[in-house]
């Protein structure tokens, strides 16, 4: 399975009321791939993702899906192609897991229609995929952080979009859950060819799970490409202002960034 949607950003300038954060970015999202946006705190990676998801209106430039500006699409039609899981979605008090996942079906339902067989199947499939069926009738408040994040992703899956954006889906999770979530997203990508774009903080997990990296610094795209090609010590120095050594990840052979601080350096000659 694969999709053919062309998602492009051209000459994008964006930000908040009186503060420009993105200063001219051009990019095309690789189809059917997992892309990760990396960058230091405050570099604009989250703003970029939000602008691409129509949450922020661009000051200049275009965000287009198949050649048409995303804000020209009827909202529900866009929501059937493009989904976003925000960093901190709000949980309505007292809602059950199945009902929350079910809300992901909203863009597929018309104003008056009830629930179709297809809606139930999509919810069931999404919950099966994220391994949360056993929680179906529980209150969200009863779940742990990692389980909750799986519920939110299940909701985004129930939306059945070809493109899925995720804003720091692993933040606040233990390392075990981080790997679990990233594995599940990789499953999703391999099984359905879903184009995934996410913002991640952990550069090493990014290097391992991304097919494509977008490196952002001060609102500009400074590098993009396969992790093995772009993630060098020089790039890490530019983007994060961090001295490091890059070695092959013993598990995945992708670049592994070993940071160098001021202390605990065993061999002075290894200093860059």
């Amino acid at each position, binding site marked *: 399975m694969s999709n053919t949607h062309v998602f492009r950003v051209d000459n994008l300038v964006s930000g908040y009321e009186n503060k420009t954060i993105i200063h001219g970015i051009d990019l095309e999202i690789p189809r059917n791939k997992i892309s990760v946006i990396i960058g230091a705190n405050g570099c604009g990676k989250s703003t970029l993702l939000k602008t691409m998801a129509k949450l922020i209106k661009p000051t200049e430039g275009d965000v287009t899906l198949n050649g048409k500006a995303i804000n020209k699409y009827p909202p529900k039609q866009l929501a059937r192609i493009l989904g976003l899981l925000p960093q901190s979605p709000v949980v309505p008090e007292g809602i059950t897991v199945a009902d929350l996942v079910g809300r992901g079906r909203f863009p597929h339902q018309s104003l008056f229609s009830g629930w179709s067989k297809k809606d139930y199947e999509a919810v069931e499939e999404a919950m*099966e995929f994220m391994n949360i069926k056993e929680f179906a009738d529980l209150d969200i408040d009863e779940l742990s952080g990692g389980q909750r994040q799986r519920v939110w992703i299940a909701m985004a899956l129930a939306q059945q979009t070809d493109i899925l954006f995720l804003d720091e889906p692993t933040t606040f999770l233990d390392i075990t859950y981080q790997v679990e979530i990233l594995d599940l997203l990789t499953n999703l990508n391999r099984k359905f060819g879903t184009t995934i774009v996410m913002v991640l903080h952990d550069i090493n997990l990014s290097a391992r799970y991304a097919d494509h990296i977008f490196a952002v610094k001060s609102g500009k795209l400074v590098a993009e490409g396969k992790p093995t090609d772009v993630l060098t010590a020089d790039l890490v120095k530019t983007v994060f202002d961090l001295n490091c050594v890059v070695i092959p990840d013993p598990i995945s052979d992708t670049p592994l960034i070993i940071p160098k601080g001021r202390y605990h350096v065993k061999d002075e000659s290894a200093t860059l």
Partner: protein
Amino acid sequence: MRKQTGEVNFIMEGMRQRRRRWLFVTSILVIIAIGLCCAMLLLGNTIYPVNVVMRSLMGEEITGANFAINTIRLPRMITGVFAGFAFGVAGYIFQTMLRNPLANPNILGITSGSSVAAVFCIVVLHTSNTVVSIAAILGGLVTVIVMYFLSRGRSFSIGRLIIIGIGMQAMLDAVISYLILKSAQQDIAAALRWLSGSLNGSKMTEAIPLVMLVIIFTPILLVLGKQLSMLELGEQMATSLGVATDKMRVTLIISSVILIAIATATTGPIAFVSFLAGPIANRLVGVSASNILPAGLVGAILVLFADLIGQFAFEYRFPVGVITGILGAPYLIYLIIRMNRKGEL
């Protein structure tokens, strides 16, 4: 990935069960509301038998009964049902959209804004009922707009909105008291209703705009219920699910303010109904689907029930607003204590 039908059914079963509960509880609420409506027609200084009430309503001439039932009790019942429904629906929409039970037209002072405009028209300008209604709606909308600008700050915060709303309510209530104190002796009776809502002296002619607006806006709001449920997930999630959030929010706010204002213009501010109806409905029905309709029904039931208590439970007749105030105040205190514990205040 084909699954056995049994598994689909498992998820469907839970969701269907919640939907059945919604339907069941909502039906019960309809039955209770109808029962209370009947009680409103039957009970009074004279208790007429059912057949007399029916005949009187059908237009038959029955001396005494005609006046009591058609002129006094029927308008009172209709005003109570529709005003209660409007308060309940508007309160629920505000509370759900702003995700906070304290954020309702009653506590935010929107009701008071409508009241100020209405009292001013009655006491100072001596205008007709239609003008009073329109003024009440404008008063409510202006209050919302002022509150929005005052609470905007650097970024929108619901906490700040609520605190500013409470302040505005206190201020506006002071204006109402001032207007009433300054009013002519003969207007005081009419103006007093604005301190605590009352169904006394309800007239059919005054109930008509209320009934009409409720009938117009209820279907619109029921259709938008699904979008409201999406807004509950936060601005970003709602947008990514395909809700035109700004448009939707403005539509919902204007519709609710119109409902709350016309109800206030007709009965005065019946304390706490818009505040209590939503949480009670959520508790009874569960929160799986939109509870606009159940909240409206709970609002109507609260008003009718409180009015019956006010009329018959004590030696003196109390206006309905006094009774709902007594019912609502403890809940407000409970809510504040609970939110304080959770660190939400």
